[in-house]
Every structure is written in structure tokens, then in C-alpha cells.
């Protein structure tokens, strides 16, 4: 198993779980397969594994129920927060406006974090699809951004919080109820108090937080 062809096979086998990689590469070596046969075998297995994952509800809900709709909403929300911040700066900071800005910023952080956590927790092995489902709307809006005197980066204020939530979701899987419940309730109260959009959009933003509550009830988080 030497040469550029086998290097490709070894690299492609990185798509497989470590134990499976070991068994498959060993089988290919024992069978004395040609490198390109080996490459097709490894890629075929990786593809089958991905297809099988999509028989579950998890990747569908994650990519098309959370990431895709909420990426657009959170970009809009990020724009709102950055506009409020700039307006407050121009007018001078007053306590009422400052508290409003603070409330919206906290809400953005909580909603983005809980969306990220839900995505990380429910679709670990198809996370790359969720990442693409977030990246595409971001690139679309980024390329069409035409607000004068504003950076398109203001669209992406939600992204660090969502990524942080996704990382925690991947690592922990579940939250303790005593943590999940305050997060969901805070997001719900803050959202409903100043909501002017449709109920469907509201539901799309809030359900990941309540999903974390429902998951947390079943068992405590791993230590």
C-alpha cells in the first residue's frame, strides 16, 4: 500500500470512523486491490454512511428546520442590533435606549447560542451539511449587501454565538434542566415582549431553546 494512489485512499479513509477505517484498509490490503478500486470502495462506504444518516429526522430538522430559516432571521436580527448600536452612539447613550439595546443583544446571543447548541446536539455526524446550510444564506446576503456606511460584517453578529453553541452542543449533547429552562424562558419573554413579525418566524426562533428543555428532561448532561 504505497504510492500516490494509496495516499489518496488513506486520506479518503479519514471520512470513516477510526475502527472502520482500520478494518477497511486492512481488507483492501489483504485483497491486494488496486489503489483506485480501494478509493472507490472507501468513498462508496463513506457515501453509504452519509445516506444512511439522512434516513433519520435529525439532519433534516437541523439543516432545514433550524439552520436555514434561522440564518436569515438571525442576520436580520444582527442588522437590527448593529443599527440600534450605531444610532445610540450618534444620539448619545441614554439609559432607556441602552437597556433596549442590551435586551436585544442578550436576546440575539441567547437565540443564536441555543440554535447552535440544538444543531450540534442533534446532528453531530451531518454537521457539515448544517454548516453549508448556514454558509449559503450568509454568502448570499453578504454578496447583496448594499447599506451605505455599514459593513456587511454586521450581518454576522450572531455567528460567534451560534458557533459557540454548536461547539457546546457537540461536546455535551444535553443541558441540565436548571440551565436549559432559564435560557428558553428568557429568550421567550424577551422575544414576545418586542415581537412585530409573524408567529411562524417567532416559532422558528424559539423552538430550539424549548427543544433543549425537552431534551434536558430525559437525563442530566454528561459530566
Amino acid at each position: 500500500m504505497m504510492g500516490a494512489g494509496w495516499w489518496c485512499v488513506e486520506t479518503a479513509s479519514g471520512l470513516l470512523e477510526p475502527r472502520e477505517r482500520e478494518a477497511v484498509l486492512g481488507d483492501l490490503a489483504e485483497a491486494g486491490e488496486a489503489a483506485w478500486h480501494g478509493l472507490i470502495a472507501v468513498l462508496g462506504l463513506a457515501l453509504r454512511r452519509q445516506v444512511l444518516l439522512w434516513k433519520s429526522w435529525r439532519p433534516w430538522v437541523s439543516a432545514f428546520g433550524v439552520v436555514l430559516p434561522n440564518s436569515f432571521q438571525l442576520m436580520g436580527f444582527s442588522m437590527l442590533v448593529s443599527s440600534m448600536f450605531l444610532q445610540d452612539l450618534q444620539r448619545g447613550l441614554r439609559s432607556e435606549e441602552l437597556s433596549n439595546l442590551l435586551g436585544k443583544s442578550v436576546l440575539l446571543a441567547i437565540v443564536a447560542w441555543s440554535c447552535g447548541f440544538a444543531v450540534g446536539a442533534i446532528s453531530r455526524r451531518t454537521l457539515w451539511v448544517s454548516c453549508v446550510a448556514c454558509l449559503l444564506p450568509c454568502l448570499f446576503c453578504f454578496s447583496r449587501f448594499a447599506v451605505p456606511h455599514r459593513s456587511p460584517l454586521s450581518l454576522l453578529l450572531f455567528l460567534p454565538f451560534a458557533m459557540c453553541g454548536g461547539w457546546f452542543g457537540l461536546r455535551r449533547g444535553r443541558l441540565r434542566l436548571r440551565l436549559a429552562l432559564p435560557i428558553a424562558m428568557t429568550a421567550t419573554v424577551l422575544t414576545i415582549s418586542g415581537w412585530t413579525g409573524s408567529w411562524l418566524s417567532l416559532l422558528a426562533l424559539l423552538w430550539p431553546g424549548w427543544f433543549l428543555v425537552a431534551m434536558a428532561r430525559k437525563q442530566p448532561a454528561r459530566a
Partner: protein
Amino acid sequence: MLGEFEYLIITAAASLGDQAYGAAIRDAIEETAGRKCSVGALYTTLDRLEAKGLVQTWMGEATQQRGGRAKRMVRVTAEGEAAAKDFYDAVARISRGAAWAVKRTGGIA
């Protein structure tokens, strides 16, 4: 009830006994049944059979012949044997009277 490919894997693994692992099962299926057995089909089906409790798998020893890589060993469980027997009986029953079955067994099938 088992699928045809699941039956082939269980039967090949049972025939191989202690020597049942990925590459050996592939060879047995390709040589005996005369059908192509891809690595992808083999390992995804083994996972499905293991999830159903019909086989057990574990990582075996590494050998020089395999470039120092471990084997995924396979053992058919009692449930797996029962499922394979059910499949075989069903095929035998449904084949009674079929021209090709009568020709091969002299009508005893």
C-alpha cells in the same frame, strides 16, 4: 425476515466460523454466490445485522498481510441462526413445484 444479502452474509460468516471477518466474508460471497460484494455494502449490512442482534462484531488482531491493520471479526448469534433458518425454510417452501427446483432436486425440494 432477512434480505437476500443479509442471508448471504450470515451464512458465509457461519460457514467461516472463527475465521469470519470482513475480507473473508467478501471472498466467500463472491466465490460461492458469484455476486460482487462491495466493501460499502458489506460493512453497512453488518452494522444493520449487529443492530438487530443477529451478529456480533469486534476488532481482532492485526496481521502483516493486512499491513498491520486489525480485522473486524464477526460471529453469528443464536437469533441470527434462527433468522437465517427461517429465510432458508421460506425459500425452500416457496420453491416447491418451481421448474428449476424440481429439476435440481427431483421433486423433493
